[in-house]
């Protein structure tokens, strides 16, 4: 579904990503790990369209994404969450989801007028479903800025789902969570896969990565140094060296 | 051709004042990421304040008036800081902007009230001196304007790059939170930025008064617009940019005034701005 071929992204002299080859097949959950500064978030940003690639290509469902603006990528089926949560703080939980309903199938189903100027009634059911999934139904009218941290993370994920994506890029969704929350996140991610969504998970929290991914790729200094199943990666000496450094 | 070059040289000399105004706008923007729309009005207000010394000592020499304007500018700058930036939480970007607009109107009205709307004569220095360089005439008073402006710019750059205050200012402009964590008192730095730009503005206002020969409250709006145009063309936050842009706008404006008259002149300055916005929106220099 997603293919990165020789992807590079430079910022001045810094090679944030350097010749990265990565394939994510439909229905997989692939993890992307690596020490800080290894290029994981940059990869998400390039795939999402925030930065153009300096070299190499990104293919989604066989088609090159070069030059496609971010909002069109969302409509093509790629959604992402942010590492530092970027909710619309002054809008309510409900409104945050409402704004994000930009999937092409929704656009086709309801006319222009209904979609933009219609009231809330037409989409109540769908948004209610998203709220249920994220356990936020009781807070639907609360301003996003007033939510607890864990709730904000759930809203961030729900918002990414509002556009019915085919591919979900999760940027460190477990940061700052405790064990129980990580367990709930793991269950939610597995439910999403069961619904047919392909997932690329950037993460530091090994508890989550090892427990939920099919395959893991490891980055260091912008290059892929290892790829394999969770068990293979855990046993790989190169990976340990990258994280712990030293001889 | 000669006329053209003469117009350019006069324009460049006068453009030095635009450069000073542009520096004031751009410095506040660079440090606090906010626009102080009252700046040009405050500069003209400071120039008026300079005239106060003539109330006290009737025969005072022009440089005393300039000095008084200089100091008045610092005071007014500090007042603008207090009323628009000190108390308003910076998380609200629109409120300080609106407040500076309020100060702009307030300063304008105070000027109109105190002077009953009558233009005030402004002393000039060396206005009877004409230097001849080959075929060109360089007006003595304009040379002074340019000279003083250059001295001010050098002083400002020295302040920013060779003193601790300057270092603190640059730190705050880049990372205000980290600067605070390093013990820099951000409020103090911000206040000093306003005082320093106010001092600069006072000089600029006085120099403008001196080269035009009179001050009038009608000067504030066009000066605000031009100052902002200079700031944008130079690149928001860049002092060298403001300097170059000020000279550029001064020269451009004077050339068009020479050849197309006063009414069309301003339209061409707007077109210059739009040309930059289309082809080089980040301005001449990056901050």
């Amino acid at each position, binding site marked *: 579904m997603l293919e990165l071929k020789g992807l590079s992204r430079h910022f001045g002299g810094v090679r944030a990503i350097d010749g990265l080859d990565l394939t994510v097949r439909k229905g997989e959950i692939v993890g992307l790990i690596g020490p800080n500064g290894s290029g994981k978030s940059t990869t998400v940003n390039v795939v999402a369209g925030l930065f153009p690639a300096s070299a190499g290509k990104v293919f989604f469902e066989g088609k090159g994404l070069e030059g496609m603006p971010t909002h069109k990528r969302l409509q093509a089926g790629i959604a992402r969450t942010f590492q530092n949560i970027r909710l619309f*703080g002054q809008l309510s939980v409900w409104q945050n989801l409402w704004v994000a309903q930009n*999937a092409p199938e929704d656009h086709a189903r309801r006319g222009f007028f209904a979609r933009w100027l219609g009231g809330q009634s037409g989409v109540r059911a769908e948004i209610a479903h998203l709220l249920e999934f994220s356990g936020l139904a009781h807070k639907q009218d609360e301003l996003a800025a007033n939510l607890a941290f864990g709730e904000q993370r759930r809203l961030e994920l729900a918002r990414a789902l509002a556009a019915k994506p085919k591919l979900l890029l999760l940027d460190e969704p477990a940061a700052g969570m405790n064990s129980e929350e990580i367990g709930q996140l793991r269950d939610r991610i597995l439910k999403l896969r069961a619904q047919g969504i392909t997932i690329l998970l950037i993460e530091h929290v090994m508890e989550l990565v090892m427990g939920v991914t099919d395959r893991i790729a490891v980055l260091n200094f912008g290059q892929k140094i290892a790829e394999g199943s969770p068990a293979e990666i855990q046993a790989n000496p190169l990976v340990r060296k990258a994280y712990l450094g030293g001889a | 051709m000669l006329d053209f070059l003469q117009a350019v040289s006069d324009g460049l000399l006068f453009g030095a004042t635009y450069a000073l105004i542009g520096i004031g706008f751009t410095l506040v923007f660079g440090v606090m990421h906010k626009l102080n729309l009252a700046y040009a009005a405050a500069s003209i207000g400071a120039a008026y304040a300079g005239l106060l010394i003539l109330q006290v000592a009737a025969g005072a020499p022009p440089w005393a008036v300039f000095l008084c304007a200089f100091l008045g500018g610092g005071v007014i700058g500090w007042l603008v800081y207090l009323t628009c930036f000190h108390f308003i939480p910076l998380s609200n970007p629109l409120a300080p902007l609106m407040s500076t607009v309020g100060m702009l109107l307030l300063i304008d009205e105070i000027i109109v009230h105190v002077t009953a709307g009558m233009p005030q004569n402004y002393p000039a220095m060396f206005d009877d001196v004409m230097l001849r360089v080959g075929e060109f005439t360089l007006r003595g008073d304009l040379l002074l304007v340019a000279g003083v402006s250059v001295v001010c710019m050098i002083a400002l750059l020295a302040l920013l790059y060779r003193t601790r205050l300057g270092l603190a200012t640059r730190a705050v402009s880049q990372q205000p939170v980290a600067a605070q964590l390093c013990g820099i008192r951000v409020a103090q730095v911000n206040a000093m930025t306003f005082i320093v730009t106010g001092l600069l503005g006072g000089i600029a206002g006085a120099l403008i008064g001196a080269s035009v020969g009179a001050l009038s409250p009608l000067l504030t*709006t066009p000066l605000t617009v031009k100052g902002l145009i200079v700031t944008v063309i130079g690149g928001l936050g860049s002092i060298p940019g403001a300097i170059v842009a000020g000279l550029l706008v001064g020269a451009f404006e004077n050339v068009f005034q020479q050849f197309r008259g006063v*009414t069309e002149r301003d339209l061409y300055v*707007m077109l210059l701005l739009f040309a930059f916005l289309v082809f080089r929106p980040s301005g001449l220099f990056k901050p």
Partner: protein
Amino acid sequence: MDFYYGLAQTVGIHTLLGLSAYIVLLTGQVTMAQAAFFAIGAYAAGMLTVLGGWHIVPALGAGAVFGAATACAVGFPALRVKGLMLVVATLAFGEGVRLFFFNFDYQVAKGEIKVGPLGGEGFRQIRYFQEHGWSTGEVMLFIWVFVILSMAALWWFDRSRYGAVLRAVGEDELAAQSVGVNLTAVKVSAMTVGGAVAGIGGGLYAHYTTHIEHANFNVLLATFAIAYPIVGGLKNVFGTLAAVIFVQAFLIEGLRFLGDWRNLLFGALIVAAMNLRPQGFLGGRRA
């Protein structure tokens, strides 16, 4: 009674001006161009009734169309200009439009006299209401029909997904893009709607004052346009209405007894309002 009708007319027209800025401000674009769209609507509607003999309602419609079209044209380049630079760019655009009308002559002979805009002299004899025997009360009601329609339309937008999307863009463009919002469409459409509302306001203004000239559409008017929604708060359209009533009715008329000093108070009151209540009368940005 006529006095109160006149006041209500002024409040109505300024509310339209404020509303035109309100919708653009929601998207985070601080625009000083609304007075320019207002001017375009004024001249367009005036010329159609005076020179073309049109009925007032289609003339106002044309004013809205011209305002909207200009705003749409401005909206695209405005996308390239970030944050506070947009203030400067729109300010310069506004001044450019004003200068255009300063130089704009289009006169047609009607019987013995010539009518139409005449550059610096302005556009006199826009006497549609007088020629058709409208009373002051009727004009007031007519103006308020448009005000109420505009407020209703904007209220509806606010309650709909479009309104939530506008505010999302105003809050965080990056996040909005990432959830599929087309920034260009949203920002330009908001600017266009604002231009339409300003065009209607301008058209009504021209007929209510019967004489318009370039100086009416200056930086001060552009400032009023954004002052109303900022002082009133961006929570909903009533904030803007409240601010207009506060400024026009209370300040300008009610403080008439202060004579000349009331203009002084205006600036001071804006500064005070922004310090005491930076989020505006009605507060925050949630509809």
